Every structure is written in structure tokens, then in C-alpha cells.
């Protein structure tokens, strides 16, 4: 990567540490607000930063915290798009800071916390609280119907089925689909793509013995699948590229059937 910085004016290169700079100065406009501090006023504050090759927003935010603003709050764990902690509004759209290269954007970048979720401070939101509430409402687990015998070998599963389940299991609960959903923005109890995708996942699982009628009880209303207006925000912002349109359409058909069968 160091070759990328060759030929960059020395003043700029000196601004970055071991790597050469790209010659661009970024201006990160970051939402600042601490709800725990009564004197804190919500505002955007701009932080200039010399861009380095391969810089992600995650790297940029860490540099700002190290060099300019030690009190800046934002979340991250894995740096690799696996933990789902660093979801934020990047120029108005939900995305993961660690998966967003600054080189792909104009130098002026606006960062804000994900809406819908409770604000902890600055860019940090409590997605966990929301996800837990959704999980409890939608019962996103395999209900234990028989006492498990931990000494016997688990029933085998067809590789194709395991693959299908895994495809949906890739969801990292980053909250981007909720923040990108017009319905979730208006209706706080709406399960959103993350919740409905989970139901789709458990529906596939042979260990989950619930019927479509049971799932209908959980998502067969306007807070569930019938609340979805197919705005496709979820599909277009999902950092894991989950097949959300496909799953939502499929689930809608199954739940319509389950709902109509209920009355005969």
C-alpha cells in the first residue's frame, strides 16, 4: 500500500503516520450529542483529517478520537463487518463504518447515529435493546418441545437445507435495515427485515416444529409482515447483502395462506 502514497506532497504525507497520504483532506461532519449531559446540545461538528490509502471510516473515526476528540463515542468490535456494531448513517444512508472506504466518497462525509434506536451518545446507539425486544416479541428461537438428550447424536440435516439456513443466519443485527426502512421509521413496533428474516430462518429449521399458523400469531399483522410496504430500503442497505426482498415476499405469501386457512 505504501506505493500508493508515492509522489504525494511531503507536508500531507507527514500528516499521516507510517503510510503515505492520498493527498486528500477529509472533512468528517460528526453528530455530537450526549443525552446524559444536560448541557449537551445536538450538533454536527467538523473534523479535518488527512486521508491515507485504504482508509475506512472506522480507521478515520479512531484517528479523530486519538488525535482530536478523545470523548467521541462510537461502537466497534471486529473491524471486519462481522459484529454489526459500527452501523451509522453515512451521508444519510445506513452502513457499516468498518466496511466503508473513504476513497469511495467525496471528501466531505456526514456521519450520524442510526435513527429508531436509543441514542447512547454521538454515533453510538443501543441496537441490543431494540433487537432483544423484537426477538422476544417474535420468539426468534427454537422452542424446546422435547427434552434434549445430549448423549445422542444430532439428527443430520441435508447440506442444501443447512446452506439455506446459513444464508439467512448471516444477519449480524447491525440495525441498518431498520434505520433504512420507512415503515420502521414511522411505526416503532414494526419487526422490520431483521425480525422477519429471523422468522424465515426458523421456519426453515427442521428442529423448529412450529406451524405457519404459529408464525402467523407472531407476524401476521401490521407490526409484522403485513406492515411491510416493500420500500426496499432494507434490501438496498443490508451490508451482508441478504436476500431480503425474496424472503419478505415468500413469507408474505405463506402468512396470507396461514391467515386465510385460519378462517376456513
Amino acid at each position, binding site marked *: 500500500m505504501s506505493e500508493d502514497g508515492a509522489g504525494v506532497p511531503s507536508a500531507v504525507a507527514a500528516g499521516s503516520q507510517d503510510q503515505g497520504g492520498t493527498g486528500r483532506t477529509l472533512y468528517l461532519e460528526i453528530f455530537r450529542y450526549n443525552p446524559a449531559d444536560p448541557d449537551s446540545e445536538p450538533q454536527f461538528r467538523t473534523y479535518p483529517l488527512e486521508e491515507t490509502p485504504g482508509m475506512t471510516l472506522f480507521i478515520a473515526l479512531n484517528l479523530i478520537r486519538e488525535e482530536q476528540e478523545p470523548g467521541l463515542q462510537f461502537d466497534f468490535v471486529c473491524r471486519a463487518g462481522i459484529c454489526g456494531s459500527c452501523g451509522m448513517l453515512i451521508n444519510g444512508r445506513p452502513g457499516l463504518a468498518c466496511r466503508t472506504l473513504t476513497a469511495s466518497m467525496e471528501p466531505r462525509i456526514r456521519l450520524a447515529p442510526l*435513527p429508531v434506536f436509543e441514542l447512547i451518545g454521538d454515533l453510538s446507539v443501543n441496537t441490543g435493546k431494540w433487537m432483544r425486544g423484537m426477538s422476544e416479541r417474535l420468539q426468534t428461537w427454537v422452542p424446546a418441545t422435547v427434552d434434549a438428550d445430549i448423549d445422542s447424536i444430532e439428527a443430520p440435516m441435508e447440506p442444501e437445507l443447512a446452506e439455506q439456513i446459513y444464508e439467512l443466519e448471516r444477519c449480524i443485527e447491525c440495525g441498518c435495515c431498520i434505520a433504512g426502512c420507512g415503515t420502521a421509521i414511522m411505526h416503532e413496533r414494526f419487526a422490520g427485515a431483521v425480525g422477519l428474516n429471523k422468522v424465515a430462518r426458523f421456519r426453515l429449521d427442521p428442529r423448529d416444529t412450529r406451524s405457519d399458523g404459529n408464525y402467523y400469531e407472531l407476524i*401476521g399483522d401490521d407490526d409484522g409482515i403485513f406492515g411491510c410496504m416493500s*420500500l426496499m*430500503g432494507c434490501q438496498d442497505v443490508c451490508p451482508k*447483502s441478504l436476500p431480503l426482498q425474496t424472503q419478505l*415476499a415468500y413469507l408474505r405469501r405463506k402468512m396470507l395462506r396461514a391467515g386465510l386457512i385460519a378462517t376456513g
Partner: protein
Amino acid sequence: MTLSARALPARLDALQSVSGLLLALFMWAHMLLVSSILISEEAMYRVARMFEGYYLFGRAHPWLVSVVVALVLLLMMLHAALALRKFPHSAGQYGAFRVHQRRMRHGDTTLWWWQVATGFLLFFLAPMHLFGMFSQPDQIGPYASAARVYHTHWPLYLVLLFAVELHGAIGLYRLALKWVVLPGRPPQQLRHRLNLLKWGLSVFFITLGLCTLLAYFRLGEQISDRPGLRYPPAIEVNP
């Protein structure tokens, strides 16, 4: 919860989709038939008589048109009542969605806003047109329609044209995304094509509608000095 109350959300969702589908298809058929004036005055005359049952009963019955209009109005009322469930219904929801829409700059989210706005317009504008057709079904013909367009109705039809053709095409596009598991990998390619098709259809029908409206307007202008003039058909109807 009783069984039928439990099934209500599923039924309402399906009914909204079905009523929307029927209305959208009706509107396209309507546009194509109305545009028969672009072929000739005689073509439009025959289309109008066809819907009065002339070719079926050998005699024109304008009340048949009133029946169809009443059914369309009922279907529209059903669709409107169901669609109202989706409208933002508080200042908080309205504000939250508008902020979200401007922030996201996301095509399909913005389209939904246009669907709400055009749907709202149609609540008021469509019944104006429908009541006219219901109460005066015999006033549909090349000269009678042209006179109506020219003298009073062209602003209504102009706004209706844009509202209907945008609302219907967006609705059908959304219907596909709602119910159809798009095949292909990635399905996004198909969605992109559907979106292009949607715009293509809107542009086609709006263009056709503008040409048709202009044709009626000019015809109405030509006959404006002869109020109440009826088209002298090549075929004899109800002599």
C-alpha cells in the same frame, strides 16, 4: 381473538393488492380506449357505443356505463379505505418519514411518497370525473367529450392523467416486489429492469394521454360555436 379477527390483517393486505391491481389494469385499458380518438372520431364513437352494449343488444343502453362507473367507484373506495392504513397518520409519523426520505435519497422510498401524494389527490379528483360519467353516461362520444374537455374539464383531466399513471405504475411495481419471489441471482437485476419497465409504462401512458387530451381539446375548439352538437355516425344507433 376470534378467528376472523385473526385473519383480518392477511385479508386486508391481499384485498389492497387485488383492488389496486384491478384498478391499475382498468386505468390502462381505459386510457387505451379513450385514445381511440387518435385513430378517428368514428373509432371513438364505436368504442363508446360498444360500452353501451350496442354490439351485444343491437341497441345502446347508456345506463350500462353508469353501472360500470358505480362499480369502479366502489372498488376505488375499497382500495382507498385499505390504503389509508398505510398513510402517515400523525405529525410525528409524517415528519419522521419526510426526514428519512430526504436523508436516504433512495428511489423506492421516494416513490412511495409519490404514491401517497398521488393517491391523496385521487381521493378528490377521481370522484369528480366519476360522478360526471355516472350521471351523464350518454354524454360520452367524440363531440360531447371534446366539448367537455375544451369548455370545462381539461385541467381536471390533465392532473388526473399524471396522478393516475404515476400511482398505478408505481403500485404495480410495488405489487411485484411484495408478492413475487424474484428469480435470478442477484434478483436486483430483475428489480432494476422492473423499475425501468415501470417508468417506461408511465411515460408511455402519460404521452398517450397528453396526445389524446390535446386531440379532444382541439376538436372541442373546432366545434365550440355549435353547443350540443352530436357526432354524426357512419352507423345508425337507436334511430
